């Protein structure tokens, strides 16, 4: 594992990000922009599931307008996150906040998948402008909590690794 991380860290692009004066901050800027859009667009759906906002609009329609933002921003966040990781792969891989962040992102994915498989097919919960069933509200609350924790882990990585904060 460590030798694989080391060879990732030794690639030309990882070296350029690590040693360049301004590449790391620029990649980080794009990462921050992308993650604000990932979390913000997911929060729109979560708040709808919780019945806090957009009550006059069905969950399906709310999701249809946010999902393209969520996915495109997620791809950008994952690519830029991967680039930042590569620049110091061996250090990040051993950072507990980094490990926690990846685990929480995986859990958020499972939560979203479970919602679509078990609840998303229920037409009443999905297509009508009304309060969602309790199970859907629980999914929304879990998702919101997970993404807040993911943002926090991301910030704590910066404070537990020697880099500008």
């Amino acid at each position, binding site marked *: 594992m460590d030798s694989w991380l080391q060879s990732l860290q030794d690639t030309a692009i990882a070296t350029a990000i690590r040693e360049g004066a301004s590449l790391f901050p620029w990649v980080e*800027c794009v990462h*921050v922009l992308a993650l604000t859009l990932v979390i913000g667009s997911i929060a729109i759906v979560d708040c709808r599931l919780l019945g806090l906002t957009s009550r006059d609009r069905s969950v399906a329609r709310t999701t249809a307008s946010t999902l393209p*933002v969520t996915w495109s921003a997620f791809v950008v966040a994952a690519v830029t996150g991967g680039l930042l990781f590569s620049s110091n792969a061996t250090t990040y891989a051993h950072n507990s906040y980094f490990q926690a962040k990846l685990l929480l992102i995986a859990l958020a994915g499972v939560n979203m998948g479970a919602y679509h498989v078990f609840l998303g097919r229920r037409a009443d919960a999905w297509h009508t402008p009304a309060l969602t069933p309790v199970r859907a509200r629980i999914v929304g609350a879990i998702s919101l909590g997970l993404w807040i924790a993911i943002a*926090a882990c991301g910030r704590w990585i910066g404070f537990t690794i020697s880099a500008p*904060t």
Partner: protein
Amino acid sequence: MHSLDSFCTWLAATPLSQTVQTVEWIIPAVQTVHILAVAAVMTSVLMIDLRLLGLGARDQTVAAVTRRFWPFVWWPLPVLLATGATLIVAEPARALENPVFILKMGLLLAAAGVTLACEIPLRRNGAFWELSAGRRRAARLIASTSLPLWVAVIFAGRWIAYVQGA
């Protein structure tokens, strides 16, 4: 800039600043709240701008989309000011003597100004930006100016950490 120097030194020595500096979890926690509030503003601006540009939520009127998202452009602002102020109290010179911080505040004023220019006519008439071809063009211009400005605010925010104060 002698008086600003001494103000920063004084602020950094206050008990409040000392507390924020020494209790390790405060700064990352405050930055997390700051970023979450940025997420609310940025996503709301994007949803409104995408609608103005005719790229998203076209099953809803501009008025409906803006009514839905305006609150989330403006109400995170007090949170952003409070968390931002806490970060300044923790390290006054890192922000106040940093050209990128001044740039960020300028960009913020410009972004807020453009966003208000879009919102104020809508308050009087929800269909304002849809009444004529000229207004639709103006709305698209406003949307395509507002997005890069808010993005620049975020980028400048991150660059504060990488540029040394004067």
